[in-house]
């Protein structure tokens, strides 16, 4: 279980939830990080979807993720529009999960000037207040 918190520095809009993603979002609200994994080719699939994009098998199941990974690359966004205008600078990043997939996310709880490729990070869930939470990542001990 990872932390779910409601005080967030970044906007946390409510995601679009459909029958294929309902279980994922319900898990986030409880601090559980899951995705689909292919039982045919064993790949973890991000974003979670019912058909494996690698071998096209329909035999995929929900599996827990460790919530740990490293920063593959990132950018400090210094100019933004809309709801994001007031929260610059913020970090948009690809995190390479321990299980393999790279996901786009934000790095939070950090000094944006100190973020570096290869930094270990862990998931933290930011509550939307509507039964879902957005997975973001914060620096973790090595």
């Amino acid at each position, binding site marked *: 279980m990872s932390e779910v918190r409601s005080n967030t520095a970044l906007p946390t809009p409510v*995601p679009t939830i459909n029958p294929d993603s309902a279980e994922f979002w319900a898990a986030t609200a409880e601090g559980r990080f899951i995705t689909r994994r292919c039982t045919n080719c064993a790949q973890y699939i*991000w*974003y979670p979807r019912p058909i494996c994009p690698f071998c096209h098998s329909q035999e995929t199941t929900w599996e827990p993720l460790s919530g740990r990974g490293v920063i593959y690359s990132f950018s400090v966004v210094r100019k933004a529009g809309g709801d994001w205008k007031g929260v610059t600078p913020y970090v*948009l990043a690809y995190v390479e999960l321990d299980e393999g*997939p790279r996901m786009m996310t934000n790095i939070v709880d950090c000094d944006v000037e100190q973020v570096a490729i290869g930094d270990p990070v862990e998931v933290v869930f930011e509550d939307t207040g509507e039964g879902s939470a957005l997975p973001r990542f914060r620096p973790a001990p090595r």
Partner: protein
Amino acid sequence: MAEDVVVAGVGMHPFGRHSGRSLKDLARVAGLRALLDAGIGPQGVQMVYSSNAMAGMLQGQEMVRGQTVLREIGIEGVPVVNVENACAGGSTAFAQAVMAIRSGAADVVLAIGFEKMFVADRSRTLDALESAADLDVVAGLGIQFTAVYGMRLRARLADGSIARQDLADVAVKSHANGVRNPYAQHRVQVTAAQVLESRAIADPLTLLMCSSICDGAAAVVLARGGALPQPGRPTVRVLASASTSGFTLDPAGGPSGATLCAQRAYEQAGAGPGDVDVAEVHDAMAPAELLYAEQLGFCPPGDGARFFRSGATALDGRLPINPSGGLASRGHPVGATGLAQLAELTWQLRGEAGERQVHRPRIALAQNSGGWLEGESAAVNVHLLERTQRWT
């Protein structure tokens, strides 16, 4: 190739900020210029593929955008197909027109792209741009395309294969070419110091490295070889037309969409990257040119910066890239960009590119990419054009 398809005419409305002009005004100018260049009237067009990405959100014209602008120039009573493929829409319209002619459905087809991104509320334009990604997946991330390119480049700065100075120098080259292009949005020479000191947008990218909000239109008339004789003018034919959608990257790695598409195009043409004499690539941020030079096979993987530093990609180099100024300097009105690239290459192959003319090119490559899906472009098109007559 069983049926040669030729570029019979091209035309553009200058790219830039055109507050007093409507979407129809922009499209009308580009469309009429392309018809004039092809030597035909509106009645000569048998089919149209029309590209626009954002008029639904920005002008409220959610449907039949092509028909509404085309009747302004008297093109009515023919099949009109509306095309949307984010920033790759223009080249998608071109690819469809090529297929229509090859299929035998038509002999003369117009591909037209138009976009008006300057509207009263700039945040609407930014929202429309964000929708070039899968909103179910990226909602809540504050995604912007500058940062997506920023991440690609950051990884290369970190491994030392690209230096921060390269990012600035390539933007200087883009602007130097744009200065010579009367159709370009940003026609101001800049220095590397100015580029690096300009406002940070998304690290490591600064304002002067990035394409910006832009209005504009571009159009191309394609014809079956021999259908529109143009004596006295060099013929530009379509040597290859290759397209792909994005795909989920295997964590173990693999070729990019641009690489995959370029390989397909080279195979169709029976040519290779060494045969290309001039290229227009999708540099929504000027330094992306360094990455695409590798992905299109112009230099080995990892050598994009070294290739650029050698001078090979300058106007007088071995393989000039983005003589028009590219997206960053010529401008990037989303649905029109792909056709502007093909118009530029047609002018280059004919020898009509004025002050930015490169030396006697025979084969030209255009690469146009659109949207973003988990690390890959959502749509990519690569075209190869050939001048069939020798230079004299």
